[in-house]
């Protein structure tokens, strides 16, 4: 079957550079410059894959990114495997391996082909109507449905390639480097605009670059030669950047566009290592010129999907650009002049054309005359009624169309062929235009949607704007560019254009057949196997909107997103429903224009770059001392420090005991720190905290609780008055950024009259917290000059001091209930201060502890952790922290909400302590609390928020919230676990040292 169909040397393909590649395991050869599709066609291979639903054999249909059928899996056993790749877009390279998808055991013999025989039972939406009995069986049906669906296979190994992002800001972006785009880019560049020209193809010039015929001339030169000169000129501009293999994926509002630049997909695998595979360009353009061209429409008739059936323009492109004949007996079927351009190209190259079938009866153009001169048989006023050949077309049968286009008349004529090129006219590629928010209008004369209202500073030029012929394009462009770019003249005024193309077209969305439609398979969406009769069925069943029909029939939902078939679907709907085309609108074209690799979208934000790590200045010490870490927001916090193979439990017990028995040390640098200055700083704190601040003396510290305006606890921390108008506020680690944001919001928008300035200083200071009965001895060794007596330096106060020559702030505050000090020092000295403390604490068994021990120690004291013991439904009253809610203050954030009918209720959930009956049993955090678990439904009273085994109390302790818990001290409750019930007693949440004696120990 393998033949060489390479017909003539093409300057676009390098025949001196032979490339071997594999398709379905067999080695073939092509040349540098070939796509996988052109190389397969040159080897006379059309059958590439199987369709989604009926598993019908399918071949190469197009020569571009609109390809619905010829999609393959690349390198199926490599980590670089990729499913659903269009053979028409893959540039071949040495070692390329491609295989057919969605078929088993092979594309030649596919078991799934049975679906084609069953197809009468599988009309659009059949699955909505069946698989419902028995009810429990859907998942069993679904298993098989899922298996037969899908196309290629997902990779199963991590991706070895790298991707990146690039931001581009330009004056003018030109999308598409066909003749219109080249002219636009040159004009923009000539006039000093910083211009970017992109095209998805590896070469410039679009389809004009291979338009090699006496029938299309510009200034008396063949159009392709004229364009070549233009291209060589634009390459000289320094302010014009040209990117090929770059496909614009999305056109968002405000001229923000995303484009994918392909850098390595066309080179052999072994050369790709350490190179960027694809780059996502994030383009912000002042002006956008869209020159995306147009897509040829297929024609819709019975069995219009067989391998060997291609768009006529694709047949032309394979011949002109790649020097490949798609067949030896070619037939063309058209409703417009385009197929004649193909015919003449094929004839020039000596490729045989059996016949041209034209559904127009009266036609007359220079192109047609030329075709007839070459003795090519033209059937005028005919349509194809059927095609034959399972894995490759071998015959078409044609009949005459009635004058009204509704039916076929006369007798059938058969024509043998091995390739059929079809042309249904052209559809402007308006996808990007509509994505940007542009509104289309419908042009009745040739049944196309063209741009009408633009939503940003942009313009469409050339055939994407509905100018399909060379003379139309060239005569309209100068004017459009002058107006859009506001320039006086272009190089293209008064060009002499010679075009043999006649615009007449006979548009019939669904061509008539000699059979009832129910017996035919006129495909509209090739990949998803949606036919014209499916669309008619949907309409019959009451689906009227294009979106309904699309969803019911899956038209336009394939990987080609309906680039070929959507217009026909619209046409058939309007014809069947008797509505006008323009009124129905189009379906929404959603980004991306062509599928966009996840890796490209993500760029370098993978692995270690997924999210930043925030590390304290003392981090390296923790690492060196084998700490385990906990993620708190973006921070890495030391969690515990296992020694000699300790479990977490053992380590935490040891750390907790040491902190209370002698001394512990904690890295508290992650706590948020906000520097507050200004003459109204005290008033500001009055408004944002629940308690009063005006009377706090300079040098004193106070704990504050912050609410949301809805009265729920939001954040907490100790704030210190450093001076008359100067405070330093600490926040929770996770809340730092949001607290600052919230405070700024109130300050700038509600209370602009306050003289207050906020600065985040979280990263400026390292905080070393030393606690325990020996903390004073240790810290006073580190800071020998400071008077640590209780009189001079009592609990809840602060001192400015120095360690050697380094200034630091020392707060005597405690989150553990122990006598303790927090040393705040410029961040880069943090590790040194930590080490000094460790050294000074050696004799006191100073023990570094992590967040877990910190949590345990504070729980012994009944201190809350916002976010763990609270959950945005707890008021300070619920937390039994009434003492911190000022009754005197007129207002503070959240105050009013505390007095709503449901927030003043006595039976709200309240924070309590919980003690287990068995002191060794530690409750599970998150476990629910009930009074009676036998009742159904079980009434849940609350849950356990914090729970630990306390080595200091030698028993299990827990905090929890319990409905009405405040008044239940001493009462017995139950924690119902999956396999047991645990008895607990409600207790005071302060388990240790209620009198706070240890603070001054």
């Amino acid at each position, binding site marked *: 079957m393998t033949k060489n169909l390479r017909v003539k040397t093409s300057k676009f393909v390098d025949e001196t550079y032979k490339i071997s590649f594999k398709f379905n395991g067999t080695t073939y050869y092509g040349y540098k410059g070939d796509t996988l599709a052109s190389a397969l066609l040159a080897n006379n291979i059309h059958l590439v894959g199987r369709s*989604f639903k009926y598993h019908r054999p399918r071949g190469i249909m197009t020569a571009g990114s609109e390809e619905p059928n010829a999609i393959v899996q690349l390198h199926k056993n490599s980590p670089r495997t990729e499913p*659903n790749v269009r053979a028409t877009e893959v540039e071949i390279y040495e070692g390329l391996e491609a295989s057919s998808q969605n078929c088993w055991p092979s594309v030649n013999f596919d078991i799934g082909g049975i679906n084609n025989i069953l197809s*009468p*039972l599988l*009309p659009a939406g059949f699955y*909505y*109507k069946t*698989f*419902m009995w028995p*009810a429990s069986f859907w998942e069993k049906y679904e298993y098989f*449905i*899922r*298996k037969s669906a*899908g*196309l*290629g*296979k*997902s*990779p*199963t*190994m*991590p*991706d070895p*390639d790298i991707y990146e992002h690039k931001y581009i800001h330009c004056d003018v972006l030109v999308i598409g480097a066909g003749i219109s785009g080249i002219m636009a880019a040159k004009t923009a560049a000539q006039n000093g605009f910083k211009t970017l020209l992109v095209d998805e193809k590896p070469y410039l010039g679009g389809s004009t670059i291979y338009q090699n015929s006496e029938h299309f001339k510009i200034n008396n030169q063949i159009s392709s030669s004229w364009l070549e000169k233009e291209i060589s000129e634009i390459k000289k501009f320094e302010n014009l950047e040209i990117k090929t293999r770059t496909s614009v994926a*999305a056109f968002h*509002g405000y001229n923000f566009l995303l484009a994918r630049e392909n850098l390595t997909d066309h080179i052999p695998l072994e050369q790709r290592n350490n190179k960027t595979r694809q780059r996502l360009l994030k383009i912000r353009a002042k002006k956008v010129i869209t020159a995306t061209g147009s897509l040829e429409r297929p024609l819709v008739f019975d069995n219009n999907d067989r391998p060997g059936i291609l768009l006529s323009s694709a047949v032309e492109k394979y011949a002109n650009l790649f020097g490949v004949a798609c067949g030896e007996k070619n037939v063309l079927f058209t409703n417009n002049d385009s197929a004649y351009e193909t015919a003449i190209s094929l004839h020039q190259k000596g490729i045989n054309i059996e016949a041209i079938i034209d559904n127009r009866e009266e036609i007359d153009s220079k192109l047609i005359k030329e075709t007839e001169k070459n003795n090519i048989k033209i059937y005028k006023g005919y349509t194809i009624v059927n095609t034959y050949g399972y894995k490759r077309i071998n015959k078409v049968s044609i009949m005459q169309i009635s004058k009204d286009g509704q039916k076929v008349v006369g007798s059938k004529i058969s024509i043998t062929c091995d390739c059929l090129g079809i042309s249904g006219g052209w559809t402007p590629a308006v996808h990007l235009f509509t994505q940007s928010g542009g509104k289309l209008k419908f042009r009745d004369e040739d049944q196309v949607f063209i741009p009408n209202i633009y939503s940003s500073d942009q313009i469409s030029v050339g055939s994407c704007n509905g100018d399909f012929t060379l003379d139309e394009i060239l005569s309209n462009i100068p004017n459009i560019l002058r107006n859009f770019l506001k320039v006086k003249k272009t190089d293209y005024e008064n060009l002499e254009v010679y075009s043999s193309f006649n615009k007449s077209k006979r548009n019939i969305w669904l061509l008539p057949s000699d059979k009832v439609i*129910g017996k035919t398979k006129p495909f509209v969406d090739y990949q998803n196997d949606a036919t014209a009769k499916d669309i008619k069925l949907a309409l*019959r*069943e*009451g689906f009227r*909107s294009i979106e309904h029909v699309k969803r*019911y029939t*899956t038209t336009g939902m394939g*990987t080609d*997103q309906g680039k070929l078939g959507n217009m026909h679907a619209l046409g058939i709907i309007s014809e069947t429903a008797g509505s006008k085309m323009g009124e129905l609108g189009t379906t929404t074209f959603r980004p*991306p224009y062509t599928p*966009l*690799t*996840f*890796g490209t979208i*993500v760029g370098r*934000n993978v*692995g*270690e770059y*997924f*999210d930043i790590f925030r590390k304290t200045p003392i981090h390296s010490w923790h690492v060196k001392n084998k700490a385990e870490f906990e993620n708190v927001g973006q921070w890495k916090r030391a969690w515990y420090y296992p020694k000699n193979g300790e479990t977490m439990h053992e380590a935490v017990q040891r750390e907790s005991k040491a902190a209370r028995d002698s001394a512990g040390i904690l890295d508290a640098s992650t706590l948020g720190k906000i520097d507050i200055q200004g003459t109204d700083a005290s008033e500001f704190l009055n408004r944002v905290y629940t308690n009063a601040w005006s009377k706090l003396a300079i040098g004193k510290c106070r704990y504050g609780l912050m609410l949301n305006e809805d009265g729920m606890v939001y954040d907490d921390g100790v704030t210190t008055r450093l001076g008359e108008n100067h405070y330093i506020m600490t926040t929770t680690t996770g809340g730092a950024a949001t607290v600052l944001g919230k405070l700024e919001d109130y300050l700038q928008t509600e209370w602009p009259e306050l003289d207050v300035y906020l600065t985040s200083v979280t990263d400026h200071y390292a905080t070393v917290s030393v606690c325990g009965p020996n903390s004073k001895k240790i810290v006073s060794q580190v800071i020998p000059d400071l008077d640590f007596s209780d009189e001079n330096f009592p609990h809840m106060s602060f001192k400015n001091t120095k360690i050697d020559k380094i200034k630091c702030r020392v707060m005597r505050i405690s989150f553990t209930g122990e006598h303790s000090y927090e040393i705040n020092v410029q961040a880069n000295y943090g590790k040194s201060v930590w080490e000094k403390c460790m050294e000074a604490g050696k004799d006191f068994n100073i023990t570094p502890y992590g967040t877990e021990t910190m949590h345990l120690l504070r729980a012994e004291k009944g201190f809350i952790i916002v976010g763990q013991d609270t*959950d945005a*439904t707890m008021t300070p009253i619920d937390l039994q922290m009434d003492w911190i809610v000022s009754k005197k203050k007129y207002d503070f954030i959240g105050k009013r*909400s505390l007095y*709503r*009918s*449901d927030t003043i209720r006595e039976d709200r959930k309240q924070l309590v302590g919980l003690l287990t009956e068995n002191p060794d049993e530690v409750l*599970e*955090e*998150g*476990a*629910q609390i009930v009074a009676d678990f036998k009742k159904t439904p*079980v009434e*849940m009273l609350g849950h356990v*928020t914090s729970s630990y085994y306390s080595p200091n109390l030698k028993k299990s302790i827990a905090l929890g919230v319990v409905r009405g818990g405040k008044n239940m001290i001493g009462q017995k409750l139950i924690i119902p676990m999956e396999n047991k019930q645990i008895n607990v007693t409600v207790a005071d949440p302060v388990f240790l040292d209620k009198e706070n004696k240890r603070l001054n120990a």
Partner: protein
Amino acid sequence: MRNKYSLFSLVKNAFSYHENWEKAWKDPEPKKEYDAIIVGGGGHGLATAYYLAKKHDMKNIAVVEKGWIGGGNTGRNTTIIRSNYLWDASAGLYDHALKIWESLSQELNYNVMFSQRGVMNLAHNLQDVRDLKRRTHANRLNGIDAVYLNTEQVKKFCPIINTSPDIRYPVLGGTLQRRAGTARHDAVAWGYARGADEMGVDIIQNCEVKGIKRNGDSVEGIETTKGFIKAKKIGVVAAGHSSVIANMAGLKLPLESKPLQALVSEPVKPIIDTVVMSNAVHAYVSQSDKGELVIGAGTDDYVSYSQKGSHDIVEGTLNAILELYPIFSRMRMLRQWGGIVDICPDASPIISKTSIKGLYFNCGWGTGGFKATPGSGDLFAHTIANDEPHKLNAAFNLNRFVSGDLVDEHGAAAVAH
């Protein structure tokens, strides 16, 4: 039932080339007056009409829809269905819906493809672990099937998740609700429409509400692009556009409408057989029966009705997807789109009477309304028919924003509001 759907009817119709299928629903012009009008032809609105007709014997009902039925968030969501909510009120509401889902295809004689492939929620930090355990315990006591999984069990249930401890936010565990899953979104709208139509409900598409006519404290009807339609009861289920309709009646709601985006990949053979949601790194993914990876992104933080969100949100979501599923790096995004979701301050819905007699609102579902469709319709129908809420939606009243009895489900939504 006319034209019952079955394998038999498919075979029978195959002989007549499927030329004889009847309309799934008619396409009537509006009558002058209805007993009740439902504004909004999405899944919730159609379900409401269906249950009004079916359970409350109200047959003179219309559903008016601005565009085409199921074209809003019903047809734009990622179809996740689950009921593992934290609070009793939410668990009651969503599990009521889930129970209806379990026999909905048979009830409607329309295959909504409810597939109980399980939904897994992942924990990435210690507070996630506490929260998910808390939720699991609450679920168990509320009779909802939820189990807590450790990292190995997560990996076993969904082997393609990267559970390495070395990733930025390692998977520390997760919850699994096996009864949860996905359904075919369009089919839900179409199935309810067909069922409602069968009982005489008028489904009126391309009919936009332009005004709500009030007589003092009562409603009298709606002004539409197809003229004035009278009704004493009007139930509004307009999702992102709820505030727009409320403003017509002179009401304000505690809602903000924001863009929510989703995307699908190209279809591939089965690779992920469950639904995985991750709150902390914000990624959720399932695979449709067609083979597409269905990925939900987050909301933008600004109000917008443009049905377009910002690219950053999509990028952020895919960052998280590749963090958890590095094998998807070479998969390709086929299509992305946006919807408008109406978000309540407590991330719970409103199914409630209003201060205007005869005017009811069902809104505020935020990012998670699809899963509730059948339950929401049932309970809203009850509320409209009886002018009183059902006990399952009593907590979801408008007054909670006044009294402070919010149902804060922020922890349960996969999207950070």
